[in-house]
């Protein structure tokens, strides 16, 4: 039975967590993520969601609570943005290192100094190397669906998942969202089975000091050293691609919506130029592609949905035999280029693809980006590429003198 409601992206994230019957929620307020967990607090106090809600004094403690609660077998959820996510940084590493299937809704916001409450993706991109799976959503329907998918992925590969979506652009924008049937979600998402349970029945010392090398336990069995454990985390993230794809496929079968597995494409079949991006800027790129097509340029879009693990093969496949690539992104790896652009180029290298890739840094700290501007940028890049310019970094709508 269809249940469509008009809701914000933050409501959609909260609804996703509710449908997954999260057992422990901890949060600290930060704009623009605050209303995600406010909504959940409301449900908990009304008795509409049976969960422990821990109102801690900082984001560092938020992620700590998630880690400990997950360790004793509870399904946990939280949400944050910007400096909140940065403040969690140490604990993000600890969560991934502990192989805990925590799901965090990251409502993307710029990072100070100076203060900005507005949207870009610098916060989550700065957590790229923490060992979390990162999924970027492009509309509110995808947010609710992705939170549900995230638990299944996380609990299968024992890696935490960050469901990222753009602050205000999605978090505070109302859209029609179909709320999946609760019983169907239960069928889709089996109960969480922890890899290790901390309990007095089986005393263990979890996450003690570890040597660089392998070492025998009391029974003489050779156990992992630090580096072997790190490889297992890398292996799990690399292996999670298949789980992501299968999860999306199963979800589509059950709920009739497919948001793409690792990435999604728009009008790519006959394209002579591909625009690439993550999150709402990629949605905007689809409008730009339509504008370009009206002007006779066969443009298409590749939306990177899962940024970690990076969709290496899918990117190679999507960009093979394309004469020009333009990457739009709301982050900058200072001293180099946009993180997505660098990763796309690195993926192409292995496949011997020599296509020119132009990089646009756009929308930092909430600076407006219009579809017409993305189209215009693409036109100018095509001209530069025709003139032989293989690489180019441009800060869109920015004073660069």
């Amino acid at each position, binding site marked *: 039975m269809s249940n469509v409601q008009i809701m914000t992206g933050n409501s959609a994230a909260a609804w996703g967590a509710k449908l997954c019957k999260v057992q422990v929620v901890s949060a600290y307020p930060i704009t623009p993520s605050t209303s995600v967990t406010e909504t959940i607090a409301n449900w908990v106090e009304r008795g509409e969601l049976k969960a422990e809600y*821990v109102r801690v*004094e900082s984001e560092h403690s938020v992620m700590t609570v998630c880690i*400990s609660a997950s360790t004793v077998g509870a399904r946990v959820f939280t949400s944050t943005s910007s400096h909140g996510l940065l403040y969690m940084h140490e604990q993000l590493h*600890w969560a991934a290192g502990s192989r805990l299937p925590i799901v965090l809704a990251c409502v993307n916001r710029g990072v100070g100094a100076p203060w900005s409450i507005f949207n870009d993706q610098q916060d989550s991109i700065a957590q790229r190397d923490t060992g979390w799976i990162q999924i970027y959503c492009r509309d509110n329907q995808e947010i609710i669906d992705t939170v549900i998918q995230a638990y299944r992925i996380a609990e299968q590969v024992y890696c935490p998942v960050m469901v990222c979506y753009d602050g205000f652009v999605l978090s505070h924008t109302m859209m029609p969202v179909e709320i999946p049937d609760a019983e169907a979600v239960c069928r889709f998402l089996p109960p969480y089975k922890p890899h290790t349970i901390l309990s*007095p029945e089986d005393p263990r010392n*979890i996450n003690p000091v570890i*040597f660089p090398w392998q*070492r025998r336990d009391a029974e003489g069995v050779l156990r992992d050293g630090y580096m072997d454990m790190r490889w297992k985390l890398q292996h799990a993230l690399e292996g999670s691609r298949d789980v992501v794809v299968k999860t999306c496929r199963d979800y589509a079968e059950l709920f009739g919506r497919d948001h793409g597995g690792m990435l999604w494409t728009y009008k790519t079949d006959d394209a002579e130029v591909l625009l690439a991006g993550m999150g709402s800027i990629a949605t905007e790129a689809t409008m730009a592609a339509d504008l370009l097509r009206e002007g006779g340029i066969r443009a298409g879009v590749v939306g990177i949905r899962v940024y970690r693990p990076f969709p290496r093969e899918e990117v190679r496949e999507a960009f093979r035999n394309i004469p020009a690539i333009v990457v739009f992104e709301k982050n900058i790896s200072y001293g180099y280029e946009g993180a997505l652009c660098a990763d796309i180029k690195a993926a192409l290298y292995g496949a011997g693809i020599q296509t020119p890739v132009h990089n646009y840094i756009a929308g930092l700290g909430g600076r407006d980006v219009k579809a017409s501007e993305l189209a215009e940028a693409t036109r100018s890049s095509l001209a530069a590429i025709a003139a032989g310019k293989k690489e180019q970094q441009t800060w869109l709508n920015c004073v660069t003198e």
Partner: protein
Amino acid sequence: MPEKLFKVNAEEYILPGNRACSGCGLSIAYRYVLKALRENTILTLPASCLTVLHGLYPITSVGIPCLNCTFASTAASASGLVAGLAAMNRSDITVVAIAGDGGTFDIGIQALSGAAERGTDFIFVCYDNEGYMNTGTQRSSATPMGALTTTTPILTKQQHKKDMMKIMEGHDIPYLATCSPSFPIDLYDKFVKAKRIKGTRYVQIATPCPPGWVFPPKDTVKIGRLAVETGIVVLYEIENGKFRFTGRSKTISEKGTRAPVIHYVERQGRFKKMSMEQLGQLQRWVDGKWNEYLRRAEA
């Protein structure tokens, strides 16, 4: 005394041959802490001397389940355990956080204050060896005035120790206690009592540290006793706001036999650069605290 010893749980929860330094005050205290807490307990601890005592993966000296956490997060880690266990319908388990003075007075104070304000149902144990001993004796806010540390290597620490008990009491928690490994029955009784109480309980153990304080490992118990005899460490508990001296400190308060701090200071290498002026300041600081306790005990 012997009959009192017989009531102590005979079970051992930390194995001999663990990685604590010889003469470690923490290892004596910890043995009795775990005996009092017994099996139905989950521990969480940050990076500290205790992490070392627990041993290196995949072998451990501890027989109670424990979760290692990051330095600043101990009390939040306990909060997560409490919430997770409640969600799993395992509220019968006692959650205990245990951190050193650095992990309590300094980097851990924010999470601890938050957990205590929320009335989180757990015991927070601070084993106070008065400095960052695991990293090799750096100054902490628990280091006493006049002590040499590797970050106060010439001039000694210029400030008095932070009164963490007072800070924790400011959270209106139901139970606070101080104890010392030199008085294990007093320590044991306090943990047995703490385990029975609901809400946030805070217990601070003054644990002498031979390498950090610079005294022979054979003198650990003696140094711990001298700390109490001189009033540097005062054994007491505060139950629902009511202050009570306990054990040896109770006797000292009744008989008025408190010794001068010089008896304690002169036996430790860390005080060898202490000036007479600092010694006087330390004595006055101890006197002031002691008189405050006397007033509270009489009230």
